[in-house]
């Protein structure tokens, strides 16, 4: 059983630290104050809290206007409402002018949307953001990482999209700090296979590596939390060692980590890569862990994918 943390609280606590130091940082919500556990923030910093109502396009447009006049707005609401409903505002008015707006999307992945069903399970956000030029894209592993990632993205001069979860987000047992644009090597048993993972399914990757080890297959497990810019050097080093990889993400297998790694490796370091993720279908409602198992993101699926990848190595 996973220990759980709360990435939403981690975000809002970090936000409070940020506004204490940076008078230009503000929070913009679209009736999402409860989503991001923002009541204490709104009460403590009423002048730094803007709620435009259930109107995400307007939230992003407003944030663009604020950033154009020197503020550093963080827009926080559900991942899909930022990346899909307000997609064009993100693309044309934040990313194209390169404005300093941070976009924070909750319920990233089917496990974070869990019982709400498809309307609140967001598994396309990363793919959509990745195709827009000029946005830094970050998928932190757990609440500890969100703490660090929030502060790291604040330091980026320009647009960033960061995923957070449901507030019941598995804790990854690791003290390796978050460094934007650098993979975190979480486990290095050997060079048989790389398991490249991100988000709230990393523990599954780690467990799969343990299981593989009992069968004499030694894996490297890395947290690829920054999708743009991708840590090309770090990934090449891993793939050089393993010559095969499995990607593990709570996202459609199209557009996310699996795509980023296969696109990159096809050009720079061709090797077998098997993708674990939602296989381009709409999920059902359910509890997070059984949902992930049902949609082929189980530990067993990762183990089998690793063996398949190894088998196809030259």
């Amino acid at each position, binding site marked *: 059983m996973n220990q759980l943390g709360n990435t939403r609280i981690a975000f809002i606590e970090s936000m409070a630290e940020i506004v204490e130091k940076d008078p230009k940082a*503000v929070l913009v919500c679209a009736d999402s104050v409860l989503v991001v556990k923002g009541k204490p923030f709104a009460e403590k910093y009423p*002048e*730094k809290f*803007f709620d*435009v*109502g259930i*109107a995400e*396009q*307007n939230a*992003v*447009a*407003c*944030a*663009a*206007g*604020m*950033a*154009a*006049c*020197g*503020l550093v*707005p963080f827009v926080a609401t559900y991942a899909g409402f930022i990346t899909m409903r307000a997609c*064009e*505002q993100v693309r*044309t*008015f934040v990313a*194209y*002018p*390169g404005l300093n707006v941070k976009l924070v999307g909750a319920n990233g992945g089917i496990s974070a949307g869990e019982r709400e069903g498809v309307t609140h399970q967001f598994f396309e956000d990363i793919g959509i953001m990745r195709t827009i030029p000029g946005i830094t894209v970050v998928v932190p592993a757990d609440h500890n990482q969100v703490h660090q990632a929030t502060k790291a993205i604040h330091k980026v001069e320009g647009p960033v999209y960061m995923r957070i979860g449901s507030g019941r987000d598995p804790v990854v047992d690791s003290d390796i700090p978050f460094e934007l644009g650098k993979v975190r090597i979480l486990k290095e048993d050997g060079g048989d296979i790389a398991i490249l993972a991100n988000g709230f399914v990393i523990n599954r990757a780690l467990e799969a590596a343990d299981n593989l080890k009992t069968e004499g297959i030694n894996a490297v497990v890395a947290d690829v939390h920054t999708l743009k810019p991708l840590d090309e050097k770090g990934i090449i080093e891993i793939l050089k060692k393993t010559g095969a990889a499995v990607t593990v993400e709570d996202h459609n297998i199209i557009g996310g980590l699996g795509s980023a790694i296969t696109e990159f490796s096809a050009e720079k370091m061709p090797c077998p890569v098997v993708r674990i993720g939602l296989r381009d279908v709409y999920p059902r409602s359910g509890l997070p862990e059984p949902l992930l198992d049902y949609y082929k993101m189980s530990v067993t699926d990762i183990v089998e994918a690793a063996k398949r990848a190894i088998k196809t190595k030259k």
Partner: protein
Amino acid sequence: MSEIERQLEDIARLVRIDVVTMIHKAGDGHPGPALSATDLITALYFHIMNIDPKNPGWEDRDRFILSKGHACPALYAALARKGYFPRSELVGLRSLESFLQGHPDMNKIPGIDSTSGSLGNGVGIGLGMTLAGRYLGRDYFTYVITGDGEIEEGIVWESAMSAKKYKAGKLIVFVDNNGIQSGGPVEKVSGLNPILPKWEAFGWHCQEIDGHNFAGILKAVENAKENTDQPSLILAHTIKGQGVPFMIGDNSWHKRVPTKEQYEEAMRVLGGEIS
């Protein structure tokens, strides 16, 4: 007519000359919508706004968003006349070599406060600018010109709603009500009318003017500025193609390039030199 009105009339005529010339020379652009907004843009840049062409990034300057970004030939012409960049650049409009993009780009073009061109977004961006100004203790006003067809976009009404909540008194929005959008008359395409009661219902301070009468434009902005706790909407009745008779009443001029003969005819009417 006052001296200032006479001056503005003449500047608007020069801007119209540049609009038609640049679209003719560049071989692309939207003359009709640019000409309907020309007098509003002229009033803003040559009388109303507190700006400094030598310092386009001045933090206390008034902001302007041409939400109907396709009317940008009029804005580019005004910026050039104002001294943000040489007038000789205007003919480069929409070409690969020029910084004058097909729609306004805040990073490439000096004097542009906001990227625009995808319709409906100017009011929300303007609201963000207004809120930032208030937060930072700056005294500037934010002006937006939106088309009438443009306000069919849903985001406009999201922004209208929250501008009221935030009592955005320093946000002044003109609707360039020329009555005709790309596909035909606004009412026929969308059923948008009546426009003013909608903004009134959203809690805005509303005025209705002739968008080609400078005395009316200036007076409306004065009124809007005095109203400090409501955002302001100025419904400006305009004529698509205003100033160039053969474009009026012919919506093919929404986006069309004047031939040599048409360009010369426009120059004769506007008193422009044929170049």
